């Protein structure tokens, strides 16, 4: 009995109702373990996804668009005019980046950057009776291989095939599979401008990003310009950076300098990154719900103990225990269940994560992957531990307060 008195009493109370105590311990442990497992799964998935984006997409893309519609001449003449002219159509800008060559030349001067021009557009891919709508991206292969990982993603053919074949095209794996197209097959590409090209499949790629694999196709810049009937036009400049964290500032700088809408990878993926926020909210609410259930368990045990121990509380108070001494006993009980439950949950969570790491299966969602990508972080343990302890202390507080307010005379009178 060298432990503090309140702690000793609390420990005896719990060890004498083992089944209930174990049940509430399990509640806390499961909450904590699930948090660790789900968090490492979600964050692993999210990080993996971001890594794939960073890996396969350009870090900064300059588009032939403006963030705000260009000012109309009338606005320039009367900058503060009160009268509004309706029915004004913005002057039709010739689509394409004007001065693209100068922009590229300027960017190539900067250290840590690789720059590749593209012309992106839509087309219909016709193969036998099958028509599929695809994105056609005209590239300069020698520059492209420095900026995206298209070359590495090829599961058949070579990037050089674009140069060697007369009319070469590279398809995403999904595009090829849906239409039943294989290597060296001849496909017909029809553009909205009405240009028709017979092209030979010289490569098939798999990026792992489902949207990309199902819709993107690549051809030489020149062919794309012919197809879109836009000779010499470049409508995208893609940039790869050594330091991806600099993407947003660089995008802002480029946009300020050249006026064209310039998006960082974060902006381009903002819808997916937004989904991640929702995912995290769902995760926290799920785990929160588990912990609330665990709380009920703790509340239940401690309320039962308080009820069963009314006589003890009466005698302790009559012999001179203060309200706070009594309250402390029952808060200790919550803390004990909480801290032991948290430690058990840590162990269980660790085990779960290891188990999930050993699983191998194929899945396809935003990304195609084998098994789960797990992110292991001490932060998950800290957060789940804090949540478990807070929840169990809170659950103990209410019955503890009730116990401390019992009047000894009522108990002694009633029991005697």
């Amino acid at each position, binding site marked *: *009995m*060298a432990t503090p*008195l309140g702690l000793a*009493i609390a420990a*005896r*109370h719990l*060890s*004498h109702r083992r089944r209930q105590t174990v049940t509430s311990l399990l509640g806390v442990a499961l909450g904590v373990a699930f948090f660790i497992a789900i968090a490492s799964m979600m964050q692993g998935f999210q990080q993996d996804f971001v890594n794939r984006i960073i890996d396969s997409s350009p870090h900064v893309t300059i588009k032939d668009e403006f963030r705000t519609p260009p000012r109309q001449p009338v606005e320039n003449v009367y900058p503060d005019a009160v009268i509004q002219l309706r029915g004004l159509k913005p002057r039709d800008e010739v689509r394409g980046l004007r001065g693209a060559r100068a922009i590229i030349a300027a960017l190539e001067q900067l250290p840590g950057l690789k720059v590749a021009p593209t012309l992106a557009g839509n087309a219909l891919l016709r193969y036998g009776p099958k028509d599929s709508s695809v994105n056609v991206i005209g590239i300069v292969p020698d520059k492209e291989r420095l900026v995206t990982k298209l070359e590495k993603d090829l599961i058949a053919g070579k990037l050089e095939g674009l140069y060697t074949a007369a009319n070469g095209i590279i398809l995403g794996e999904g595009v090829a599979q849906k239409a039943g197209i294989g290597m060296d097959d001849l496909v017909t590409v029809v553009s909205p401008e009405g240009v028709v090209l017979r092209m030979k499949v010289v490569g098939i790629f798999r990026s792992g990003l489902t949207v990309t694999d199902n819709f993107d196709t690549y051809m030489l810049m020149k062919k794309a310009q012919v197809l879109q009937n836009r000779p010499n036009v470049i409508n995208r400049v893609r940039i790869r950076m050594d330091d991806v964290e600099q993407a947003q500032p660089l995008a802002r700088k480029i946009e300020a300098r050249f006026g064209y809408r310039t998006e960082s990878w974060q902006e381009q993926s903002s819808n997916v990154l937004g989904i991640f926020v929702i995912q995290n909210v769902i995760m926290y609410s799920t785990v929160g719900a588990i912990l609330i259930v665990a709380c009920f368990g703790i509340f239940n045990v401690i309320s039962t103990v308080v009820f069963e121990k009314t*006589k*003890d509380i*009466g*005698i*302790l*108070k*009559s*012999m*001179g*225990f*203060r*309200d*706070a*001494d009594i309250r402390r006993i029952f808060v200790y009980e919550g803390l004990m269940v909480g801290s032991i439950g948290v430690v058990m949950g840590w162990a269980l969570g660790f085990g779960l994560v290891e188990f999930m790491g050993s699983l191998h299966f194929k899945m396809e969602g935003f990304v195609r992957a084998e098994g789960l990508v797990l992110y292991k972080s001490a932060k998950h343990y800290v957060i789940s531990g804090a949540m478990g302890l807070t929840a169990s202390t809170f659950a103990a507080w209410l019955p503890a307060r009730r116990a401390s307010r019992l009047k*000894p*005379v009522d108990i*002694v*009178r009633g*029991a*005697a």
Partner: protein
Amino acid sequence: MTPAIPILEARRLTRELPGPVPVTLVRDIDLTVAAGEFVAITGPSGSGKSSLLYLLGLLDTPSSGDVLVDGLPTVGIPDNPLADLRLSRFGFVFQFHFLLPEFSARDNVEIPMRRLGLLGTGEIRDRAEFLLETLGLAEHAHKLPEQMSGGQRQRVAVARALANDPAIILADEPTGNLDTKSAENVFSLFRQLASDQGRAVVVVTHDTELAARADRRIHLVDGRIVP
């Protein structure tokens, strides 16, 4: 010999339970108990003996009147100092032993001392063992309450009441659940606590034979002292 300040004193002590039909538990009790005095409270069942004892032990608050401990009034003392006063000055023994069932006899006796915190761990253990030995329980120190007989439990409860060396011992029918022999033992013990150790002892009892051995008897009927 100058009369000493009475150690425990009740002045016009009245306790009513409020309600649509108020119940009077005790009314206008005047009582003084000096150190070394053994007072027995007798009376029929429901006459307010327990209620009076709870008031004297500062477990209940009077509706009017006051309880003086060491000559100082206690009405109006906040809960915490009142609890401290009970801890250091009072020892309670109830009809039911009220031992903590998860703790051994010795642990139960140690609890008030550990709460008071004046003695070190070793001294507390020694004193607990000494008290149990005095009460003839040396070989039962490690037993849980459920492993002991009624008489043994009640003696553990007495040892616990004595743990902090209180000046005032209050006992509510401490022999009510005991066989004649155990009752006799416990009663002699109270007798000694008053005569030999100079404590003020107030014992509620049904047993007129035992009550006859007190220094003074107070008879209650319907919450009032009758001569």
